[in-house]
Every structure is written in structure tokens, then in C-alpha cells.
């Protein structure tokens, strides 16, 4: 479980706090989505979980302890993160790449044992990439690479998984496949914290949406509670309607062309 409590983060020389008193909980077995416009503080919260930014006030509690009180490797055993960007400079075999997820358990010198091999196998299977194990990372498509990165995080065997925009640049099928994977991982008991711009997908898959605006929580609730047209319109600064997804009935956001809106209101 990840709990963020009254978190305040500011960047030097920035006029306002990037994250300004945010609290939410990402429980085990559920997908919690962090959404909001660009610059609303989503990625900063991920960086705070990683200890990559100076926390002014509040804390991030992971598995019951303040993230700042843990050593880097202890933290890595409790929460696995798939950052937004990753530029692996040298292509390597997918299995070896996924194996790097064992680093928090192995440290500098312990050589991989049976447990580690098993964790790697399990991560490959869970992510559905067993058949990619012997490919090299530069021979993967965008969708495959994202699954491989998720597998690397799963090999960490941490009870919480944080993903920052895992479906950027993916087509519909690959995007759906990643979300289905996250849903199955949540069912297996992981706490999943997902930063995503894909409100409609998030509305179908997440149990809770934490909608951020200007570093504050605008609303925190179920997709039905969060996806209100007037609220989204004021946060995103763009005319929208919220309709129902015809297949499953989840709330769905449709951004409007500006003239169209006047037509509708007539």
C-alpha cells in the first residue's frame, strides 16, 4: 500500500509548489490512477516516491514506513517503479534486462540463485513475454518494450507498482493489452498506482481516480464520481461532454470541437 500524506514539493525558482498538500491512498489489489492536466504534479509525486525531489512537508508512506526513512534498496523491495522515460544505451537480452529487477535483492556481489531465476520466470510469464526472453531490447516494438519494462519491475517482487504513463505512443490494441495486464496484476494483490492521461481507459480500469489540478487534489473518488463534465471542463480548460461507454457503461470523456458545443447548447 502506498499512502501519500499532505505532500508538498517545490522546485527551486518555481513560483508555486509543484505538489501542494496532496493526500491519497493506493491500496493493495486496486488500481489507483493519478490523472490531471500537464504540469498538475503527477510526475512530481512519482519522483517524490523515488526520493528524487526534496519533500518540503508531508510524507510518502510505503508499506507502513516513511519512504525517506528507508534505505534505497529497502524501498526498492517495497515499491517497483516504471518511469516514464528510459533510454537504455546498450541493447541487451530481454531476460538479462528483466534480471536487473533483482538488483535490490542481490546488491553488489550476491549471485542470482533459484529464487531470483524463479522471480524472473514469473515476471516474464505474468507479462506474457516468455517468447521475447531471448530477443534483444533494440529489436522490440513499442508495446513489447513497455511489457518488458513492466516485467523488469515485477521481477523486483515488490507489493506496490508505480507506472508513469505506460501507454504513451502505443496503439489501441497495445494500450488495451497493457491495461488488461495491470488489471490482472491488481487482481493478484499488487497495489498499482498509475499516472495516466488516458482518462477514458482509466475510467474503465481504475478503482479510484485522483484528479490533480495545480498540484492539489481536485477530486478523489470512483470513476463515476470524478468524471463530471463541468469539473473536467474547468480543470482541463476545454469543452467536454461525459457520456457512457456503450459497451460497458463506464463514464467516457468526449472533448468537443469548440463550435460544436454551441450547436449542442442550442
Amino acid at each position, binding site marked *: 500500500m502506498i499512502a501519500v500524506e499532505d505532500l508538498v514539493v517545490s522546485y527551486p*525558482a518555481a513560483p508555486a509548489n509543484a505538489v501542494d498538500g496532496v493526500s491519497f491512498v493506493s491500496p493493495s489489489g486496486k488500481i489507483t490512477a493519478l490523472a490531471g492536466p500537464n504540469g498538475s504534479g503527477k510526475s512530481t509525486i512519482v519522483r517524490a516516491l523515488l526520493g*528524487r525531489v526534496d519533500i518540503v512537508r508531508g510524507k510518502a508512506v510505503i508499506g507502513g514506513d516513511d519512504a525517506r526513512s528507508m534505505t534505497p*534498496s529497502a524501498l526498492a523491495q517495497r*515499491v517497483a517503479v516504471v518511469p516514464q522515460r528510459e533510454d537504455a544505451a546498450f541493447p541487451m537480452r530481454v531476460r538479462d534486462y528483466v534480471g*536487473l529487477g533483482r*538488483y535490490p535483492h542481490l546488491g553488489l556481489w550476491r549471485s542470482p540463485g533459484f529464487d531470483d531465476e524463479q522471480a524472473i520466470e514469473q515476471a516474464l510469464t505474468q507479462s506474457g513475454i516468455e517468447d521475447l526472453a531471448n530477443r534483444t531490447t533494440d529489436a522490440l516494438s513499442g508495446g513489447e518494450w513497455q511489457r518488458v519494462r513492466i516485467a523488469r519491475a515485477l521481477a523486483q517482487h515488490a507489493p506496490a507498482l508505480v507506472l508513469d504513463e505506460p501507454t504513451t505512443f502505443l496503439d489501441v490494441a497495445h494500450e488495451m493489452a497493457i491495461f488488461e495486464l495491470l488489471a490482472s496484476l491488481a487482481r493478484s494483490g499488487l497495489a498499482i498506482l498509475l499516472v495516466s492521461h488516458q482518462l477514458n481507459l482509466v475510467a474503465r480500469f481504475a478503482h479510484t481516480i485522483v484528479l490533480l489540478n495545480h498540484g492539489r487534489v481536485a477530486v478523489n473518488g470512483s470513476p463515476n464520481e470524478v468524471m463530471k463534465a463541468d469539473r473536467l471542463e474547468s480543470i482541463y480548460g476545454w469543452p467536454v461532454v461525459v457520456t457512457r461507454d456503450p459497451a460497458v457503461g463506464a463514464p467516457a470523456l468526449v472533448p468537443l470541437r469548440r463550435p460544436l458545443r454551441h450547436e449542442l447548447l442550442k
Partner: protein
Amino acid sequence: MRQFHSAYWLVMGVVLVAVAMIAIANGPVSVPLGAVIAALRSRGDPTAIAIVRDLRLPRVVLGALVGAGLGASGAMLQGTLRNPLAEPYLLGVSGGAAVGAVVAFALGAIGEAAITLAAFGGSVIAVFVTLAVGRTGGRAARGDLRTLLIAGVIVGAFANAVIMVALASAEPNRIRGALWWMMGSATDATWSRVAWLAGSVLIVGGAVIYWAREIDVLALGEDTAVSLGVDAERAGRRAFILAAILAAATVAAAGLVGFVGLVVPHIARAMGLRAHRPLILAAAMIGGTLVVAADLAARTIASPIELPLGAITALLGVPFFLIQLRRAS
């Protein structure tokens, strides 16, 4: 991607020893291989023993150590900075060492110890200046180790300017010594210099090997490294300083031997190595072999004239690198 076989270690070891033996046997006076082996065990003709043990062996060992240090340093830096074009000399190391040595020459310093010390001191200062410059980029840039590359280039450019000023204002007969030093050479190999370099390479190299696995993770990018429990900033700085000291020791011992630190890690990776502990070890062996071979070429191709070692490694390195680039694209 090629699969690395453990038999490659044997091949690398055999090639290194074979090249070293050939290098000991050849020179102005050729010594047959049999006599080389006898001389190494202090048997046979006293002249052969003197040539082998006092002249050629220290030179070969020095070359091997220089190559090993540069290869290991390059492998470490390319991984840490996630840049296949990174090399130790880009970090201000070479510029700083050259400034130290050239200023020492220009001031009329005599004796190898003074030059070596000045070069080493110059490179260490340059590295810390590079680190300081890399840190001025503010928090966002500081997190990005690649800022260090830019800082290194800036420090290198400044060092070049200092060298030109020092050379322009030095007495003409002192300039030649400084220039020759900058071109790299294993000519003045003595056992004391070998011992000094061997000590540095073993101690710093040991530290490099100790922390090598961190670089596997650092090579994935800083955010990922942190998520895997590595303090990316500290680990990156440590790797940077260790690699720089390793390179500085080689520069102090043999001047500027270009391209080894850049090319050798690519050869090691082409053999299928990725994990940095074996990669750095292999780069050290390949680098040692390459510099011993280049030094042999430097002193035999145009004999009795001796060519600068740094020129030979660059002459070998550039075409190799072009082939690599072509293959990669």
C-alpha cells in the same frame, strides 16, 4: 547479439600473452622467442637478459597497464553516462594532465617524477573542476550525469587554451619534450614507473570491479536506477571519479594514448558482454593487448625512428570506429 562464451576469456588471455611475447622479442635487436623465455627466467646470454628484462619487459608491462586502465575506464564511463561515445579523455582528464605536464616542461622541470606528478595533479584538478561545472546546471541538470560530458568538453577546451599559451611562451627546446609527451609514449618505461602505475591500476581497478554491478543499473537511466535502489547521483559521481583517476594514472605514466578508452569497450560488447563486471575486465585485457601491439608498431614500423604511440592507437582506432558506426547504422 553474440552469445559470450567463457572460452573467450582464455582466448583473450592467450592473445595478450602472445602479443606481449612478440613485443618483447622484437625491436632494434631481435631476440628469438626461446631466448626471450630463457631471459625472463634470468638464463642465457647476459645481453639478451638485459634487453628483455630491463628494456622491453617494463615497456610491455607499462603498455599493458596503460591499455588496461584506459579500457576499464572507458567501459565504466560509457555505461555510467549511457553514451557509446564517452571516453576518459572527454572528461577533462587528458586536458588537465597535459596542462600539468606542459606547465612543468615549460617551467623547466626535470626528472620523470616531476612530470608524472604534475600530469597526475593536473588531471585530478581538471576532473574536480569538471564535476563542479557539471553541478552548476541546477538541480534538474545535476541529476543528469550527461551534463558532466558537456562540462568535460568545456574544461578540455579551456585546458587546450592554457597549453597553447604555455607552449607559446616556453623556450623552444622545452617544447619538443612537452609535445612528445602529449603524443603518448611508453619509451621511458622504468620499473619504478611500472610499479607506480600497477599499484594505481590495481587499487582503483579493484574499486571499479567492486562497484561494477551498480553501473549495470545506472546504464538504464537515473530514474530506473533509483527505482532499483541505487543512489544514482552518488553512484554516478563515484563511477566518474574512479574512471577519471584510472585514466589520470595512465596519462601520467605514458602521456596521451587516444582512442583506446573509446574503442575497446565496443570490442568487449561486440563479444556479447553486457554486465559491467566482466565487461570492464575484458576491456582491461583487450586494452592492454591493443596498447602493447600499438607500441610494438610504434617502435618497429619506421625503425629507427619511433612513432608516437598515441598516433598509432588513433590510426588503428579511427578506421575501426568507422566500421563499427557503419555496422550499427
